[in-house]
């Protein structure tokens, strides 16, 4: 249980949000030319990091907008929050 600062609504309980998994997985530009291995990588393989991870979240029971969170998965501490389309903070890369 933790609090999330929605960039549109402010601080709310985590239960109002839904996690959307790893962020910055780029949709293939030429899907027809992808090999099976590349499809598996895109669809299924995840970094699943223990430590600082970049994630997508949606304020499902609020403004219903998507945004990104940088979070330490070992203790659920949120490091940074930024909107979709914004550049991820470089200091956690």
């Amino acid at each position, binding site marked *: *249980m933790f609090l999330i600062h929605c960039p549109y609504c402010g601080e709310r309980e985590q239960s109002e949000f839904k*996690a959307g*998994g790893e962020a910055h997985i780029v949709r293939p530009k030429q899907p027809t030319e992808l090999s*099976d291995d590349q499809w598996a*990588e895109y669809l299924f393989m*995840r*970094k*699943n990091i223990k430590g600082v991870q970049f*994630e997508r979240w949606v304020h499902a029971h609020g403004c219903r907008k998507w945004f990104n969170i940088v979070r330490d998965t070992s203790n*659920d501490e949120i490091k940074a929050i930024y909107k979709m389309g914004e550049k991820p903070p470089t200091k956690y890369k």
Partner: protein
Amino acid sequence: MKNKYSIISLIKNSFSYHENWQKAWGDPEPKKEYDIVIIGGGGHGLATAYYLAKKHDMKNIAVVEKGWIGGGNTGRNTTIIRSNYLWDASAGLYDHALKIWENLSQELNYNVMFSQRGVMNLAHNLQDVRDLKRRTHANRLNGIDAVYLNTDQVKKFCPIINTSPDIRYPVLGGTLQRRAGTARHDAVAWGYARGADEMGVDIIQNCEVKGIKRSGDGVEGIETTKGFIKTKKIGVVAAGHSSVIASMAGLKLPLESKPLQALVSEPVKPIIDTVVMSNAVHAYVSQSDKGELVIGAGTDDYVSYSQKGSHDIVEGTLNAILELYPIFSRMRMLRQWGGIVDICPDASPIISKTPIKGLYFNCGWGTGGFKATPGSGDLFAHTIANDEPHKLNAAFNLNRFVSGDLVDEHGAAAVAH
């Protein structure tokens, strides 16, 4: 050689106030080199080592464990054992395990307290009814015992369930697997550890793996907090931390690690003599031999290694428990905890070779690995020893995420593992 546990050894040891029991397993320092190293000393890892030594005549095996044996998910689950899965591949896998469970206490000379008290899965809407009937038929075609119960039969089998049609999610029916049940989770780890130790397996606790040394297309050994251990074959059975170990070898897995919670109540007199699971409202309950209600909740939907989980998940589960069992309304909960489960996109496990020679993974058991412990160990041992999967775990290979041949048990199983 271990002394045999029996009524006679119990009486004999009572004369010395039970202070002179033989140590069940040793505490060795790691050797420089092993033929096989198993990473992860939970039930699955210890069972793997046990069957490698017993059935495949392998010597020189080590199990390395970051904490203490059975201190991870083996000691954190709700101990439910069943095999009523929908698909043929899953039915084969889980029923293989169930058959080993039925004779495990005798095989290990260790009482794992396997209790075939039955597992009942409830249906709360018409789609549930159709799904559970379909699964009952599929189970019977696979030789797995299963019966469908109507509401009255559910009530008769477990009288404390509220079967009133007026509740939010009324009980419309259910399935029952009578051979299913529970076991004592710690005893499973301890029994396998004792058996493996007897056959010469080194169980090395408090030894965290820090890196995997690669050479060419294979592996050379592991870096640990107790130094470098040379080995040509590594079997990883690290549950929630599988992706962490995989990244040490430069491998990515189709897993997400999430907290799964459970809780127990204060102990009370026997009130529920079976296991009741409900997928739609996501709550399941049984009663331990100590008298505590053992209640399983769902997973959080975000990746976390924090072993905590959110309160709203527990609240949702208890809401469902209270509506189904109004008799529990004044029970107090004693303890709540979380375990980190590694979930595959198709909710089926991976027991497989990898693109790296000599590196094997047994992971992705998600929320329901305990029930498979003996079968998982047996099949993983086979896979490592022969460098080829057994026919029962061939479908659970890592390559299925490339080929698309998934074993999609999400929702199709009686989930709420």
